[in-house]
C-alpha cells in the first residue's frame, strides 16, 4: 500500500461489514469498489455496488439495529472508518454535517424507488450487475426529466388542477422519493 494511503486495505472478497453484526461506525471508500449483498430466503442478492467517494454503513450511525447487509471488497479496496462517536459529537454542534449523508441517502432512495418500479413479476433486480445498475439510473434520470416537464405543465395549469382535486376528479399521485 502507498505510504500516503489513508484507511485500511481489504483484499478482493474480504468482508468489511457482516449482515446481522452490530455496528458503531460507517465507512468512506477511498479507493476501489465494494458490493453490498443482502441475504434473503432465496440466497444472497447484490443490492448495490459502491465506488470511491461513497459512504456505506451509515444506518448504524442513526439506528441501533444490526447491520442490514454484508459488504464485500470487489478487488482490492481501501476504506476509511468514521466513528459514530466522532460523527455524533460534531453533528450536535454542526447539524449541516449531515447534509452530504442526507443527499447521498436521498439519491439511493430515488434509485431504489426506480428499481422497484422497474421490477417485473418474477424478474431480477436491475442492480445485480453494475452495468444494469447504470442502465436503471439512466432510466430514472429520463423519467425524472419527464416528471419535471409534467410538473411544469401542471404548474401552468395549477388552478385548473386544484379545482379538479377539490372535485376529487384527480387522484393523488405518489410523491417522488
Amino acid at each position, binding site marked *: 500500500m502507498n*505510504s500516503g494511503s489513508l484507511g*485500511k486495505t481489504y483484499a478482493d472478497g474480504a468482508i468489511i461489514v457482516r449482515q446481522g453484526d452490530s455496528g458503531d461506525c460507517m465507512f*468512506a471508500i477511498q479507493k476501489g469498489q465494494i458490493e453490498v449483498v443482502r441475504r434473503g430466503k432465496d440466497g444472497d442478492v447484490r443490492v448495490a455496488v459502491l465506488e470511491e467517494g461513497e459512504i456505506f454503513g451509515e444506518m448504524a450511525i442513526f439506528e441501533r439495529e444490526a447491520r442490514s447487509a454484508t459488504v464485500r471488497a470487489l478487488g482490492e479496496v481501501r476504506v476509511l*472508518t468514521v466513528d459514530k462517536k466522532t*460523527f455524533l459529537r460534531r453533528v450536535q454542534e454542526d447539524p449541516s454535517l449531515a447534509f452530504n449523508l442526507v443527499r447521498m441517502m436521498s439519491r439511493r432512495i430515488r434509485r431504489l424507488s426506480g428499481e422497484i418500479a422497474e421490477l417485473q413479476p418474477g424478474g431480477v433486480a436491475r442492480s445485480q450487475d453494475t452495468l444494469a445498475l447504470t442502465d436503471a439510473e439512466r432510466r430514472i434520470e429520463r423519467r425524472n426529466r419527464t416528471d419535471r416537464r409534467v410538473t411544469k405543465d401542471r404548474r401552468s395549469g395549477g388552478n385548473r388542477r386544484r379545482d379538479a382535486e377539490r372535485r376529487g376528479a384527480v387522484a393523488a399521485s405518489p410523491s417522488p422519493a
Partner: protein
Amino acid sequence: MRPTARGARQQDNLASYFEEQEGQLALADGSRIGVIGGGPAGSFFAYFLFRMAESAGLHISVDIYEPRLFDRCGPAGCNHCGGVVSESLVQLLATEGINLPPTVVQRGIESYVLHTDVGQVQIETPLQEMRIAAVYRGNGPKQSEPVAIAGFDRHLLDLSATVGAKIVRKLVTGFDWNHGMPQIRTADGDMATYELLAVATGVNSQILEQLNSPAMDYQSPGTLRAFICEFHLGQATIRQWLGNSMHVFLLDIPRLEFAALIPKGDYATLCLLGEDVDEQLIESFLASDEVKACFPDTLVPTPACHCFPRINVRAAVRPFADRIVWVGDSGVNRLFKDGIGSAYRTAKAAARTAVFHGISKADFEKGFWPECRTLIRDNRIARLIFGVTTLIQKLRFLRRGVLRMIAREQRDAGKNRLMSSVLWDVFTGSAPYKEILLRTFHPVFPLRLTWNLLAANLLRTERKGMKEGAR
C-alpha cells in the same frame, strides 16, 4: 467609513426568508464575496459557502485572493505549518465528501511514539488504521525534487475552484469601506468591493494589521513563534527509523511546550512549539539523546528548509463585524493542535451564518461566534492539560509512571486504555480538551496511575527495559 445597515432585496433575500426580519444584511442572488487568503480556512469557507448557497438556491460569486502558488517548492509555495490533518478531521472531511488522495497525503500515520529521557513507548491508533494525514502545505521543502504531488492547500483551493470560486492571483495590500461595503486594494492598484469579506490570512500577514482598527473592534490574535524544519532522509530511512508513526518528545527543556517529528515522503518535519522558540532552544532540543536516537548513527542531518512562523495562541477579539468575518488562524484557533481542524470549523460556521442567518455583526455574533466561543472555552481547559504535560516533562518520577502505564495498556490487548487514549487525543488533537479532561475523572484512572507511579519508581527499571512496544 463605518458600514451602515442597508436593506437587502427582500424578494430574493434568503436570510430574511429564514429569519423573517426586515432590513437585514444578507446575501442575495448575485452577491459578491471576497476571501483574502487561499489557505485551508479560505478554501473551506468558499467551498461550504457555495455548497450551502446551492442547497438554498442562491447564486453567488466568490473571489479568493491568493498570490502564492502552492505547487512551488519551498517557502514560496508553503503556508508554514507542521502539516498534520487530525484523525477527527480526516473522518469529518470524508463525511462531507472530501477525501484526501495519496497524492496529497505524504504519509498515513497509524501510531505515536512518545519519547522521554526514561524511555519510549508506542501508542497505537484504536482501530490500527491510518486516519491521520501528514501533508505538505506547499509542494515540499526548498531543495526537494519537484514531483507529481499536490500540497494540501492546493488540493483544497482546487476543490473550491471546482464548486465555482474564482482564484485571483493577487496580493491584497489595502482595505477600506466603500458606501458601507468592504473594499480591498491589490498590489497592482486594482480595487474591488464586496458584499461580504472573509479574512483568512493566518497570523503571518501584513494586511491583518490594517484590519486591526478600533472602528471594527477587531484585535488580532496573540501569537508565539514556532520552529518548523524539514530533514531529508529518503523513503527507506524513514520507513526504518520513523515508520508510520509521529514521534512526540516530552523532554525537560526550558520553554519547550511540544515537539514532534512527522514522517512524510522523503522528508521528516520537525515542529517545535514553546515560549518564543529561538536558536538556543532548537540546539538544546537537537542535542538531546532522545532526538538523536531517531536518526541513523544518531546524527541529526542539516535541515533542508526551515522557518519560524507565528502561531495563534490567544483568540482574536471580535473576529466579526458588519460584512466581515475572520476565519482560521486570524480569528480563533485550538491551542497548539489541529489548526487545520479549527480552520474547517470556523470557516464552515462563518459560511453557514452568511447563508442561513445574514452577514451583519449581530448575525455573526449569533451564528458564528458560538463556534469560536466553544474553541476558546476548550482552550482554557487545554492550558490546564498542557500545564500537566509540562509537569510531566519536568518531573522524572511522573514520566516513569506515565510511561509504565501506557506500556502496560498497549501490551495487554482488550485492557481499557485510559492513559493511552488521553495522550493520544492530546497529541493528535482529535477530541475536545474538555472530553479528554473528563476521561481522567474515570475512577480507575487515578488508581491505575498511582499504582504505576509506585511500581515504576520503587521497582526502578533500567532504561533499556522500559523501551516497551517501541518500533
